[in-house]
């Protein structure tokens, strides 16, 4: 057992809101392995890692590092113990260079007071070379692509002497090509004796790179396995406690008349950079148009335009032949356009209000739920209970604050609200990001259901599986433009799509994006 580097024993973590995130969890890591930690959202993976990294203090349990019990009460102590973490949302200062970010907090000094910049660049460059990370440490982080930013994050942890590296969903933001490169790097780190904890939802990636895996569900450890001993189906069954259908039986789309027309739309952000460049497309009733692309290529800006949140654009957006600018947010919503926002905590809910108040924010004016001035509380309560049942929202009652729910359940609240108005057009921006397999599957099925009922759907997603499974037509967005359009999604491969996503390939004609 001497190859066990770290053991977490009997970890119990209860959050201030009463949620038991970790229920007596045990986890042991062997030196030099890549160990996957997987489970649905809210299963307690992130919490367990926060405990290990000193962000959360557990109620009970102990951590044994190299045979010695350690008490990790802050990230500082975690780092001192050789534990590093690469967060899903990078903790980098965009205006500083890669080198400055790597040495931040542990700078080499000049006269004990000033940062020795030459030395900093030198050490950063050395460590990058040592681990074969091909990056320019003099470049400002804000100019770097996501994949490189992640490498900077990893180097940051390594520079601080991390032997155990925690990677929280590292591939969520990467293209297939970047993911492949990351895996090569991880294998090299493994050869050098580093131990890696790899948190992910993506089963195929785990099969590809991990030696062992631990599955968590509902705050419990559902077992640790050697990767080659379990099949993807077994893993998913252990994760969700039932068989998840990884492929949808989707009927062929039967599109009717065009309901959303977008012509020559361009928008600049506050800094004056062109974020959406001359985009045109149509969506018809009963079809799903998927927009794939690495995040930050103008998808959010486009969605903001379609839903009325941003009116400072050029070009035309016609919703049921009415100009979106003239309609405004309320007017667009009144035409039964639903919007699942990308950032559910900022736009999708009021976290300190209860579920009931969150599901009516777009429809309290409906005569079913209010008279001229007053709300009809009884009708609202009945309806809230129906929605909780229909959308399988796990909660005590509709009086529970939304902020107390898990990510997947918060998203279900958002979806319940948006889908309960009987939408004719759905704009879904990353509808299943960061939520568990069960909830994601549920939401995708609902989207298909609505399509079959004649709803037009615009699906923006960075999840390739999702856009492949759901889209009837697929467009790729790159640097504010469509770089490709595919009307026959089944024939498209991931590699091919990746090339369009990275801008390696570009289709100038874009046939099939507009119906004339």
């Amino acid at each position, binding site marked *: 057992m001497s190859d066990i580097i770290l053991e977490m024993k009997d970890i119990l973590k*209860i959050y201030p809101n009463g949620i*038991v995130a970790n229920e007596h969890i045990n986890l042991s890591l062997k030196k030099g392995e890549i160990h996957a930690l997987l489970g649905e959202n809210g299963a307690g993976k992130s919490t367990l890692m926060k405990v290990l990294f000193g962000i959360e203090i557990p109620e009970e349990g102990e951590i044994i590092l190299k045979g010695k019990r350690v008490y990790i009460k802050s990230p500082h102590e975690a780092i001192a113990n050789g534990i590093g973490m690469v967060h899903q949302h990078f903790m980098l200062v965009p205006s500083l260079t890669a080198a400055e970010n790597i040495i931040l907090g542990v700078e080499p000094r000049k006269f004990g007071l000033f940062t020795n910049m030459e030395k900093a660049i030198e050490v950063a460059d050395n460590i990058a070379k040592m681990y074969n990370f091909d990056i320019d440490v003099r470049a400002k982080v804000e100019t770097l692509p996501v994949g490189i930013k992640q490498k900077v994050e990893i180097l940051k942890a390594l520079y601080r002497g991390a032997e155990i590296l925690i990677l929280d969903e590292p591939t969520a933001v990467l293209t297939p090509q970047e993911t492949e490169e990351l895996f090569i790097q991880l294998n090299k780190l493994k050869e050098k004796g580093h131990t890696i904890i790899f948190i992910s939802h993506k089963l195929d990636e785990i099969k590809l790179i991990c030696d062992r895996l631990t599955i968590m569900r509902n705050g*419990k450890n559902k077992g640790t396995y050697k990767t080659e001993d379990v099949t993807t189906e077994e893993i998913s069954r252990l994760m969700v406690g039932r068989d998840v259908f990884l492929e949808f039986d989707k009927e062929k789309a039967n599109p009717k008349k065009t309901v959303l027309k977008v012509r020559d739309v361009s928008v600049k952000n506050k800094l004056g950079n062109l974020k959406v460049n001359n985009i045109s497309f149509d969506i018809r009733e009963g079809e799903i148009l998927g927009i794939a692309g690495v995040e930050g290529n103008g998808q959010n800006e486009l969605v903001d335009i379609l839903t009325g*949140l941003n009116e400072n654009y050029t070009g035309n957006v016609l919703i049921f032949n009415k100009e979106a600018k003239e309609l405004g*947010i309320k007017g667009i919503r009144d035409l039964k356009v639903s919007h699942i926002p990308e950032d559910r905590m*900022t736009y*999708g809910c*009021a976290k300190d209000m209860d579920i009931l108040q969150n599901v*009516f924010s777009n429809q309290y004016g409906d005569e079913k739920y209010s008279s001229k001035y007053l709300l009809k*509380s009884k009708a609202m309560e009945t309806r809230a209970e129906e929605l909780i049942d229909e959308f399988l929202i796990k909660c005590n009652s509709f009086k529970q604050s939304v902020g107390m729910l898990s990510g997947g359940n918060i998203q279900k609240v958002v979806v319940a609200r948006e889908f309960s108005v009987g939408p004719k057009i759905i704009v879904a921006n990353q509808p299943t990001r960061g939520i568990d397999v069960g909830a994601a599957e549920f939401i995708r099925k609902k989207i298909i259901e609505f399509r079959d009922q004649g709803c037009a759907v615009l699906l923006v997603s960075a999840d390739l599986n999702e856009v492949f499974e759901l889209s009837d037509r697929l467009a790729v967005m790159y640097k504010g433009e469509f770089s490709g359009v595919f009307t026959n999604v089944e024939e498209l491969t991931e590699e091919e799509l990746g090339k369009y996503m990275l801008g390696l390939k570009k289709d100038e004609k874009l046939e099939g994006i507009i119906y004339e």
Partner: protein
Amino acid sequence: MSKTSKLNILRTALSIIIALAISFIIIYFISEEPFRAINKMILGPLRSRRIFGNVIELMIPLIFTGVGVCIMFSASQFNLGAEGSFHIGGLVGAMAALWIPLPSFIHPLVAILLGGIAGAIFTFIPALLKIKTSSSELVSSLMLNYIALSFGNYILSYFLKDPKAGAPASYLIPNTARLSILINDTSIHTGLIIAILVTIFGYIFLYKSKTGYEIRVAGQNEQFARYSGINIVKVILISQLLGGFIAGIGGSVQLLGMYRRFSWIVLLGYGWDAVIVTTLAKKNPLYVPISAFFLAYIRIGADIMSRTTDVSPEIVSITQGVIIILIVAEQFLSKYRHKIITKEAKSLLDTEGVE
């Protein structure tokens, strides 16, 4: 009732007890006769009908400004305009009482209404500044309060002043405009009834009406409200207009109920106090009378104490300060709360058994 909501009540109660305890300790150290002083402060207001009446009289203006601030704060319009609205409301109430001759009953109603409208116009200014120039309503309302005060002084000196009165004060308010006494041997006036009506209205408006819902959603998360199709500009305007209106009514009710002349040459502070009242009431108008009563009670108690012993009434400021700090402090009792929650969760785990 769940354990956590019980805990919320416990937290408020404990904040009050700790604050009073701190005040008592201070009294103990500074006073020659601390026990008599504390006794006067706690039991003083109960000694006679007239003195208890003082508590209710003081509670009335606090209810108005408290409900007004509840509405504005629910929309996340953190501003102190209620103070200015109250002042202007009193001023305009006095002007209407002096200049518009009307039969009794109608006279105070018209004066109060006009006072309310003046108060609404006053809080409309910071709202407009916020919408048009996105200037902070907190700063602009604070500054505008002093303009309200100076405006009142100007009107008083040039238009209302009775040269025969010793101090700067208006002519006598005609009896037709004054609010009649409700309870004998006290100065409790019919304004109390209006205050209760305003409380009920405030609660129904904020928690049962469409507009109130919009205000609360926008107050909790403005981005979410906008995304949902709620008109933010409307929310800011309505909450500010209504909050100012109610504070303005409070001003004229106070003037017509408690004063024979308009003689306010300083800001009376009911608008500032409303922030304490609102915080204690957790922004719910229904709890405003309770927290207003509490505040009025300790103020009158401290007053009696200072008149009969060697302790000055400012001791109440310490009490208030500690209460607010403890209530606003999210972390206060959080360890204890966490323990309760941990225990509850654990016992649930045990009853569920092994899955």
